[in-house]
């Protein structure tokens, strides 16, 4: 058994070395935490899921969750680097031996960064099977045309996983057939005409629009079977959801700790505001909800690590944890009163950051729809 306490301690030490001011300044300047992510990679914590034969630690999702939870509860913005843990999953599960040997060890060592994945398009967000970006076969490769949106960290990644159509919509009987997954060398694609445009957004998430205009990528870029790429993308989603849920647990713990400390020290009407049950109760409620959500995250991660079905648990974990962290964020804003709005206290930054998980990578509504239709067998609505 690996000592998870030691993982926490080391991750906490790294975070404390940078401090919250680091994240505050990056947020202000909309810059990327390049040195922090580099240190998290070379110290092995972002390669935790890569098997040992490819230079990673080969540990389970439970341990990976601990890393992201600790990052978040230390005030770091885990969203800036979380994808480095799981995007490689598509390559690991569906790539050829040659691809895995070529890329995974270099991803482990930090020489190559694979932390960008391009699925969402301007006219097909939640409805993934309606994406339009097309990859056309040529003699020695593929020509990509189309547009993607909200593609995060693409400017800070060397490789990108791309989902594109390889058959026009409706050409195959199954709605989920006709898609393929590609491993794209971003520099090469840029040389061949890929345009990347930054999106100015609410949080420092480095998301971009991508414009593919006859962009050529070589033959060997395809991962897995042609036209069967949709599954390859989908089967990585459980890991992503569980990991993001653990980030939310960390955010929630962060908000609760900050709220408790502030409520104990801020004096108004000659007494600590924490003496008022109007301040105490919401914090106690958030604590209970984070603890409960954390049990679901654990359950989902355990099932995942045992190789068992965990779609429902992964979705529920993501929703419960995101709801609990969002509520804890709102409560922290409430507890801090006007000072919650001051950048100096970091609450508003974390509040904005944790809000994302109501929407991405999958929105709350879509989780409820999954539970309703796939767990409770209610009639399909779309």
């Amino acid at each position, binding site marked *: 058994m*690996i*000592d998870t306490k*030691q993982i926490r301690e*080391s991750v906490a030490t790294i975070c404390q070395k940078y401090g919250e001011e680091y994240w505050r300044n990056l947020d202000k300047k909309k810059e990327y935490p390049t040195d922090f992510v580099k240190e998290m990679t070379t110290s092995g914590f972002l390669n935790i899921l890569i098997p040992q034969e490819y230079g990673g*630690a080969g540990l389970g999702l439970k341990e990976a969750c601990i890393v992201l939870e600790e990052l978040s509860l230390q005030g770091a913005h885990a969203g800036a680097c979380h994808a480095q843990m799981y995007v490689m999953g598509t390559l690991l599960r569906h790539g050829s031996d040659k691809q895995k040997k070529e890329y995974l060890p270099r991803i482990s060592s930090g020489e190559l960064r694979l932390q960008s994945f391009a699925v969402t398009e301007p006219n097909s967000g939640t409805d993934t099977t309606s994406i339009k970006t097309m990859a056309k076969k040529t003699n020695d490769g593929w020509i990509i045309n189309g547009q993607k949106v909200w593609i995060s960290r693409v400017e800070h990644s060397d490789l990108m996983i791309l989902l594109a159509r390889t058959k026009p919509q409706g050409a195959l009987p199954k709605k989920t057939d006709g898609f393929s997954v590609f491993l794209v060398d971003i520099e090469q694609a840029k040389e061949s005409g890929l345009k990347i445009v930054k999106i100015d957004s609410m949080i420092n998430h480095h998301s971009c629009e991508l414009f593919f205009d006859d962009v050529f990528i070589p033959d060997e870029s395809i991962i897995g079977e042609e036209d069967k790429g949709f599954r390859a993308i989908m089967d990585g989603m459980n890991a992503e959801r569980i990991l993001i849920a653990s980030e939310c647990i960390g955010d929630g713990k962060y908000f609760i700790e900050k709220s408790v400390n502030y409520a104990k020290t801020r004096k108004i009407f000659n007494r600590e505001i924490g003496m008022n049950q109007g301040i105490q109760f919401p914090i106690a409620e958030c604590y209970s909800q984070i603890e409960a959500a954390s049990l679901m995250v654990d359950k989902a991660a355990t099932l995942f690590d045992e190789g068992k079905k965990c779609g429902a648990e992964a979705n529920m974990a993501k929703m419960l944890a995101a709801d609990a962290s969002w509520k804890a964020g709102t409560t922290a804003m409430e507890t801090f009163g006007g000072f919650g709005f001051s950048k100096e206290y970091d609450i508003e930054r974390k509040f904005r950051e944790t809000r994302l998980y109501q929407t991405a990578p999958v929105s709350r509504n879509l989780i409820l729809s999954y539970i309703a239709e796939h767990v409770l067998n209610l009639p399909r609505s779309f």
Partner: protein
Amino acid sequence: MKILVPVKRVLDYNVKARVKADGSGIDLANVKMSMNPFDEIALEEAIRIKEKGNAEEIIAVSIGVQQNQETLRTALAMGADRAILVVATDDVHNDIEPLTVANILAAITLKEGPSLILCGKQAIDNDFNATAQMLSAKLKWSQATFASEIDVKDDIIRVTREVDGGLQTIDAKIPAVVSVDLRLNEPRYASLPNIMKAKRKPLEEINPADLGVEITQRLKVIETKEPDSREAGLILENIDQLVEKIQENVGG
């Protein structure tokens, strides 16, 4: 050369110490414990000496309760090669006294044969600052305390010491006991590969009796008190009042 590094498990330096209701000591139930920060610095230095090729093996030793295993696991993950746990008590509140610790470490030294013992200058819980000195006396080894710089050359260890009013550099003949100060280095954290490797490193568990040492108590804690809380400040109207106050307090 082998280096022995004793590491103590203490209340984490970030945790606010709370005195037990009966005044018998600090409450250590369910609080975060970590490696004594000065011992972390000693271990870091040992690892650096080994990385420079001046040592072959680093042995970490902890004396106390069973849970000190955790501290030793951290030492192994940082870079110690093996660990020895001396289970000397089953009550975390029972602080083993410096002389007993020195006796145990002396016995281990005879058994393991290190030529250098690197310790923290004091443990942040009891602040005794005594073990290293007692140990060197027991072993009749050279002693250098409060090291802020260390350089090993053959059988000489050059130590820069932080003393009142400046720095003193001395050469001590190895074998030696050196206690380290805060500014010696910045300890590393355990990388994930090293945490994984530490799982396979040996951790031996022994009792003081195995070493022929008896746990004795020479000191008795009479009382433990919280520091007086700071009194509220005064807001004065002008400089004259300030001068007046200063004269009053200094006793003019």
